[in-house]
């Protein structure tokens, strides 16, 4: 075994074999596939999110964005919610 390979193994660094490339790429793409949300469900989620948030803050409905993003090995639901102002009564509640 060559020294660099040995060191990689020792420090648990990722090897760049075709085998691990296949595995890593598959894991990523499947995470994305499995987390794929159908458009109507996304729309419903968006509406319900709005409903909940609107109790506390006033939202710019036209600029609201909800999307799925894949980054650094995870899938995240990203919501960009521009707030116009916080409702005063929620400070007490």
């Amino acid at each position, binding site marked *: 075994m060559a020294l660099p390979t040995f060191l990689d193994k020792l420090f648990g660094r990722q090897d760049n074999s075709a*085998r691990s490339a*296949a595995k890593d*790429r*598959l*894991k990523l793409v*499947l995470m994305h*596939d499995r987390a794929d949300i159908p458009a109507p469900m996304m729309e419903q989620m968006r509406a319900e999110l709005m409903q909940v948030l609107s109790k506390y803050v006033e939202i710019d409905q036209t600029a609201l964005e909800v999307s799925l993003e894949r980054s650094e090995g995870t899938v995240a639901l990203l919501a960009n919610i521009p707030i116009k102002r916080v409702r005063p009564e929620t400070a007490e509640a």
Partner: protein
Amino acid sequence: MSNGRVIVITSGKGGVGKTTTTANLGMALAAMGEKVALLDADIGLRNLDLVLGLENRIVYDIVDVVEERCKLRQALIKDKRQPDLVLLPAAQTRDKSAVNPDQMRKLIADLQEEGYRYILIDCPAGIEQGFKNATAGATEAIIVTNPEVSSVRDADRIVGLLEAAELRNPQLIVNRLRPKMVKNQEMMSVEDVQEILSIKLLGIVPDDEMIITSTNRGEPASLVETSRAGQAYRNIAKRIKGEDVPLMSMEETTGFFGKLKKLFAAG
């Protein structure tokens, strides 16, 4: 009394070995004395007959039965090598819409009435209507995959679709494994594939040139004593029947001692 087993063999991706698997498992089960009916649900792309070497004996097909141009019994082709095996061939000149899920369920019930304890359904590639028809009457599913990215991705999609169709706990066959490539870190191992799909492993079939030669002759490899893939299929058939058969060693065995070892291995 149980009506026996109805197993669909599916994969999503084409060309991974569904038809070969169906033919070999059917042969192996019949060789163990089970009454087996193989149902080719790949309407329009008929091939199971060819792999089994029964292509010259087709008179009627599945669509003839469904559209009542013949009786079920007339369409069933009895295998001469394994008298307990019959094939219900697909139609070649029709399309996937020629048989609907209800008709499929009726066919399966009729086959069970004829005494067939194992009904294996060769599913077409894809996830459209053909897949839905083929899975309609099944109570179990086997997913065939190759250790490469596109077929594993498609297999994962199939797991989800089967679940949606109430076909839970599908079992996995990893087909065309090349042990040398795995050893050299060039191919995903069975463990890799299993880790990714997380479904139960039913068996591993090594890549075997004998599959090509036996298919060329119309003699499934499970009939060939010396074929590694054939042995793997015979083992899988035993596992389907509930026998506890250890997974075959994927080490290439060459030379006298290797052969000797193979002789004594569980196989």
